[in-house]
């Protein structure tokens, strides 16, 4: 996907965000005194800015798309990155039910594999050792109560 196509997508998404933000701004309660700016003052300015700039991005993208025919996705997320991101989401979701140590062991092992480590013994040992050490370091050493498993 070339940059022009990316700009068209971003311009469209940001335009929708600007419209949504504008609708929410219009519905904010007006508690200001006469002739003074209220809670909706800055959000109104932001809405106007977002609308103008997202339209500019969209129009610029459409114009550029006619010139650019091909392009490379230079800053695209690698396949392993998508897997890591999905893993991150699963990890965050499982954290309250599994607790920090159990959830982190699985996440850590998965990340090690994604970063190219194939030694199963090393993956097993490190992914258990690091979360356990970090858990005790932060809970006992720094008094930060990390999530524990309710089970």
């Amino acid at each position: 996907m070339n940059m022009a196509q990316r700009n068209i997508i971003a311009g469209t998404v940001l335009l929708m965000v600007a419209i949504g933000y504008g609708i929410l701004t219009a519905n904010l309660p007006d508690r200001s005194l006469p002739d003074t700016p209220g809670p909706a003052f800055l959000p109104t300015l932001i809405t106007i800015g977002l609308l103008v700039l997202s339209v500019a991005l969209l129009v610029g993208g459409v114009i550029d798309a006619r010139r650019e025919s091909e392009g490379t996705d230079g800053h695209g997320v690698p396949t392993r990155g998508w897997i890591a991101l999905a893993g991150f989401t699963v990890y965050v979701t499982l954290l309250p039910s599994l607790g920090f140590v159990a959830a982190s062991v699985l996440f850590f092992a998965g990340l090690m594999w994604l970063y190219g480590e194939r030694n199963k013994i090393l993956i097993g040992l490190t992914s258990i050792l690091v979360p356990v050490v970090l858990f005790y370091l932060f809970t006992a050493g720094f008094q930060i109560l990390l999530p524990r498993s309710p089970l």
Partner: protein
Amino acid sequence: MPGDILQGFLQAVQPSSLTATALGSLLGIVFGMIPGMTISSGIIIVLPLTFVLDPDISIALLLGLYVGGMLGGSFSAILLNIPGTPSAAATALDGHPLVARGEAGRALGVSVLASFAGGLFSCLCLFLIAPSLADIALGFQAVDLFSLVFLGLTIICSFAAQSWVKGLLSALIGLAIVTVGQDPIMGSARFTFGEPNLLAGVNFLTALIGLFAIPQLIRNLGTSPGDLMAGATAPMIPFKSLLPKLSDLRRIRLPVSIGAAVGSFLGMLPGAGGPIAAFISYDYTRKTSRDPEEFGQGAVEGIAAPESANNAVTGGALIPMMTLGIPGDPVTAILIGALLVHGLAPGPLLFIERPDFAYGVIFSFFWANIFNLVIAFAGLRLLVKVLAAPRAILMPIIAILCVIGAYALRNSLFDIHVMLFFGILGLAMRWLEMPVVPLLLALVLGRQLEENLRIALTGSQGDISVFFTSPFSMLFLGLSVVSVAWSLISARRERSKSSPAS
């Protein structure tokens, strides 16, 4: 005032503060050395540790990391021709050719010494300028403060050179995020969707961890394991070769002075930062050199000037941060966030309400430079082994520390979701080649901007001419115009330079 200076000095020489500074320097050098890691990421990783430490110890640790990171970046630039930090890019031009000639020790020794001199000079500037500037800033009204924050936001222009539309959109997204939560004047809930966790707004540091660390972790997954282990070829360096010879010391006197002056000055200006200071001093040193043809072939002057400059930037950037609460670069923006966690708001009142702390920061900065020198010379042979550290272990540790950092701010699982959201936002912005720094600055300065704007307009009953009648406000708005114009001219120059080549 002498009593405050003494208190600050005593605070900085407490064993706990000194240990934190030394540890920070060591960690900074290590983080700076690892290609793919930045000083910002390093600071984000150690942030959760600082929540439980005293503010003076926390800031000593973070300052050590800031200063050490600048130096560490040059090691990988010299040894591997991969700048560990953007500020070290100019150092690689002459540093790596020296390594290729088998003079790695000489290149690293000059780099360490020049960094030390630059850092020390900027520390002196910080000590002399910051208190006076804070005194002046005490007289600022809401009108002046709005214009000052506006000036701080013009940093955005420096990062929006490629696309103004994207730079400004990034800033507006940041401002929109700042409006989430209770408004700063009336306390009305805005854009919270009934979620009590959003009433206090989005925590700046949580957003920061997501924006910087997650895209970096994902990006490193795209690097082949071979590239990640590139440092395994780092050469062995005998200690003796690190000590600069007298002839080299004579050669680097002028470049170091140029770098120190340029770096300290540019550090104070919002947005200029380490990379610009390093390249300007490199260029100026080459122009004033008797042997300009040696530059790029392994001239020690070509290492000394940028290294002195990028370390001098650190002290320069601390001046507006401490006296005005305006960050000079992304790292000082993170430092502001870290201080706010401890209930300390950087700005002119810091020198009135907590002068011991303010001077303590300056002295800790001094010690950070000393430790940098000692650690670099004493431990360089071991430190270069970090370049070969296995990323398959390092990166997952960083990922887990990011989660702990986001959680520990408020012991909130909700904040981890917020961090993940910002991580995805950061990836999307990178995909679009939209700069992240304007968003970061808007997150730091947005609340102050709105608060002072509304107070000023309430006082004047909506009359905007009030911004053009106060002398300070006029000065800041004038400087904002200069800042924007400078960015426009620089961007045009860059384009005209690159167009003939293409």
